[in-house]
């Protein structure tokens, strides 16, 4: 059975040595309007990190307001709502989705599969520039009258487009427009990733030999292609409600004492559309992280990933199930409460394939040869925070337990832990891991240790205690608690603690940024395969790989991606393109 996955089998030599590629002729076509997936990946990553920094600063301002209300005079209730909205949307869509799929997807899919480039390089280039446009439209909302929308990242109507909500004048229009543009750009990139995975693999690279990184990114892309259209139509319909006066989501209502002309629409319809996108979105972020972290753990623990086939099927099962759990975000939305039975059951079932993944990561560590490199440390931190956030998901998924916790800080703590902190740890681990391939130099180890320890312990100190504020009953999206009979004074000291931790963790990210820039010039030279890894991207003839990746000969794949410490082998790893020593007859 196992041999079917890893065993050597005869592979015919490549028949086409060099595929005709468009080769750039000028600096502009090489580095700006580039069709090289690797350059596009870097463009995506830098843009995502730049906009992510904006979201990071917004989180500082929010945390400052919560700990020391009123001390920064420019933060008023409207500003606070604008911060939470922009922070959430930027982090989820413009940073995490773009970085995992546009960044890591573009860089790793062709290299890991032994392809020269994406299937449609021109479309790929277009995808990035449209993404950049979406980011610029989003940023422009900071500079229009009324500022960006403050409707919360979920943008629930009717309030999103009515007065009483900041940014209802222009901000919401720009937000919806930006999302529409983003989805158009993403669809171009996404189709590309899917076609490349299905059609562009090197000889011998069967689907069941693909590294889990590719499985994660591939499945996430399929999810995104199916889920984003729901957000797309939701955004278009709300834009019509706001601009043309249609009533898709608007019942008849009285706003600020005035009878409006709307009537007959359904606010809950928007929530269904939003979460039909929004829940798969969690896995659009999580599945690439699952895949990447599997490869980090296997490589740095010098051990085969445990239960590869189970891991693949778990990714696929999670992907499928993620489309039938969306209304667990809506248990107290006023939808028919009988839906709760169905969605609680599907939601808790999804815990099983997810738990299998956790067991297999931990069992990969078990009986390994663990090198505590920075990528490995971040992978361990990922498991801790992901398990923590996943388990609190069992509270919120179990319909009746969700009722008291819904819309409280417990939810904020949960989703930050599970889809904020955990995937970002994977991003950090992955950047430390692949930086040498991208630049030819290692990131500085000492700065990396500093970055890791403060980020890991600090992020846990921010979000673990935050659950208990929610348990206490503190609602989310309050810029200050005000006086209540049930929140004790001491809760404010917890808020101060969380804020101090958040400011420190935020500041240490600047150390990481410095490391990224400094090591470009002064980092230790890495050579082509500093981690002695098996996957194809480490076997390129040149590092960083040039346009076309492979020189004259495409690689041929003979084995799965996890041949570490194979009994009888001379070295502790066997690259995927290493032919078997004794060829079977």
């Amino acid at each position, binding site marked *: 059975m196992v041999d079917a996955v890893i065993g050597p089998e005869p592979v015919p030599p490549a028949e086409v040595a060099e595929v005709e590629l468009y080769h750039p002729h000028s600096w502009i076509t090489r580095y700006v309007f580039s069709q090289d997936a690797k350059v596009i990946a870097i463009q995506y990553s830098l843009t995502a990190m730049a906009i992510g920094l904006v979201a990071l600063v917004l989180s500082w301002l929010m945390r400052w307001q919560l700990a020391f209300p009123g001390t920064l005079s420019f933060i008023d209730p409207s500003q606070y709502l604008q911060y939470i909205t922009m922070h959430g949307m930027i982090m989820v869509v413009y940073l995490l989705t773009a970085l995992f799929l546009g960044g890591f997807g573009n860089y790793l899919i062709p290299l890991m599969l032994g392809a020269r480039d994406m299937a449609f390089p021109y479309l790929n280039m277009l995808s990035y520039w449209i993404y950049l446009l979406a980011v610029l439209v989003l940023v422009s909302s900071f500079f229009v009258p009324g500022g960006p929308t403050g409707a919360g990242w979920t943008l629930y109507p*009717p309030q999103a487009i009515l007065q009483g909500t900041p940014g209802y004048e222009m901000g919401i229009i720009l937000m919806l427009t930006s999302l529409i543009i983003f989805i158009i750009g993403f669809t171009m990139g996404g189709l590309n990733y899917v076609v490349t995975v299905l059609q562009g693999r090197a000889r011998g690279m069967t689907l069941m030999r693909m590294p889990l990184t590719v499985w994660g990114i591939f499945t996430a892309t399929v999810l995104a292609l199916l889920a984003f259209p729901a957000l797309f139509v939701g955004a278009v319909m709300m834009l019509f409600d706001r601009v043309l006066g249609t009533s898709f989501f608007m019942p008849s*209502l009285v706003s600020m004492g005035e009878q409006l002309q709307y009537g007959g629409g359904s606010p809950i319809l928007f929530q269904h559309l939003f979460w039909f996108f929004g829940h798969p979105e969690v896995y659009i972020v999580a599945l690439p992280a699952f895949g990447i972290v599997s490869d980090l753990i296997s490589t740095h623990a010098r051990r085969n990933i445990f239960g590869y086939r189970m891991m693949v099927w778990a990714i696929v099962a999670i992907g499928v199930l993620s489309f039938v759990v969306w209304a667990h975000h809506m248990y107290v939305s006023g939808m028919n409460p009988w839906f709760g039975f169905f969605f*609680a059951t599907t939601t808790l079932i999804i815990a099983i394939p997810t738990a299998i993944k956790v067991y297999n990561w931990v069992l990969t560590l078990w009986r390994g040869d663990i090198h505590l490199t920075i990528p490995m*440390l971040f992978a361990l931190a990922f498991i801790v925070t992901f398990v923590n956030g996943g388990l609190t998901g069992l509270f919120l998924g179990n319909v009746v337990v969700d009722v008291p916790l819904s819309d409280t800080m417990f939810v904020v703590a949960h989703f930050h832990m599970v889809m904020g902190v955990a995937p970002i740890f994977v991003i950090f681990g992955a950047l430390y891991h692949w930086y040498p391939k991208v630049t030819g130099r290692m990131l500085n180890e000492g700065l990396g240790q500093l970055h890791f320890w403060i980020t890991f312990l600090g992020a846990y100190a921010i979000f673990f*205690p935050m659950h208990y504020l929610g348990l206490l009953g503190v609602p989310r999206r309050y810029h200050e608690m005000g006086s209540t*009979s049930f929140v004790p004074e001491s809760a404010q000291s917890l808020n101060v603690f969380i804020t101090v931790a958040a400011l420190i963790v935020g500041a240490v990210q600047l150390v990481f940024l410095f490391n990224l820039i400094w090591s470009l010039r002064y980092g230790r030279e890495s050579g082509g395969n500093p981690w002695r890894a098996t996957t194809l991207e480490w076997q390129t003839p040149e590092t960083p790989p040039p346009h076309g990746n492979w020189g004259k000969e495409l690689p041929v794949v003979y084995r799965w991606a996890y041949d570490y410490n194979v009994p009888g082998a001379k070295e502790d790893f066997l690259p995927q393109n290493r032919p078997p020593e004794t060829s079977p007859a």
Partner: protein
Amino acid sequence: MPIALALVLIAVGSTLFHTLSPWWWTPIASNWGYIDNTLIITFWITGTAFVAVVLFMAYCVYRFRHGGPEQPHYEPENKRLEWTLTIATAIGVAAMLAPGLFVWHQFVTVPDEATDVEIVARQWSWSFRLPGKDGRLGTSDVRNISAENPLGLNPRDPLGQDDVVIETGDLHLQIDKPVKILLRSTDVLHNFYVPEFRGKMDMVPGSVTYFWLTPTRTGTFDILCAELCGVGHPQMRGAVVVADEAAYQTWLGEQRTFAELSGMTKIMKANFMPAEK
């Protein structure tokens, strides 16, 4: 091995924080103690899983460290182990889901003897309506809303004339009497949230949502809005007073019906406003 230590610290520290920290839910004031129990079961199961996984990781990181005593072992799969863990997980999940769904069934099944109480939200205040002697609420529509009729009751509906309308003021409930909370919003989404009741539900303009509860403890409790409703969201406060029967009846006797209130507005208009054409 700082990382192994850090992992142990996280497992132990989280457990200590959970047991020793002063931050815990507010004492319950409704019949939904079952929800608290399900939460406790969930804490035990998930807490055990968390501590087990993190401590096992710490053990692995220490025992199988590079340069340590153990040799790495090549083992792509272990069907028996994988299936054992899968089944154990499924059992743990079922142990949380089953009581959860059992309690949810109670939560969505409103008892026949529950009396209606209507809560109306608008940016950013709460109003309340109780059925009059007929025990039934009259119909309402957002299009009826005016300065004199802020809840939009149907002035031609005889059932609504004796409804008790509390426009500013606290909601009073009688202890140990189940109530069906009918929720209505006239503008945007809101959420009726009383932490001590544990129940919570969004209020959606254009429809009437509901849940039910039985107050079990007298006292005055905060009403908060738990669904983002614009800049005034955190300030949207009210109070619900749970009282014994005598105090409740006294309070009820002091309240005005819809007919009385609209009559009063007519009298006020006649006395103080210029005559209408």
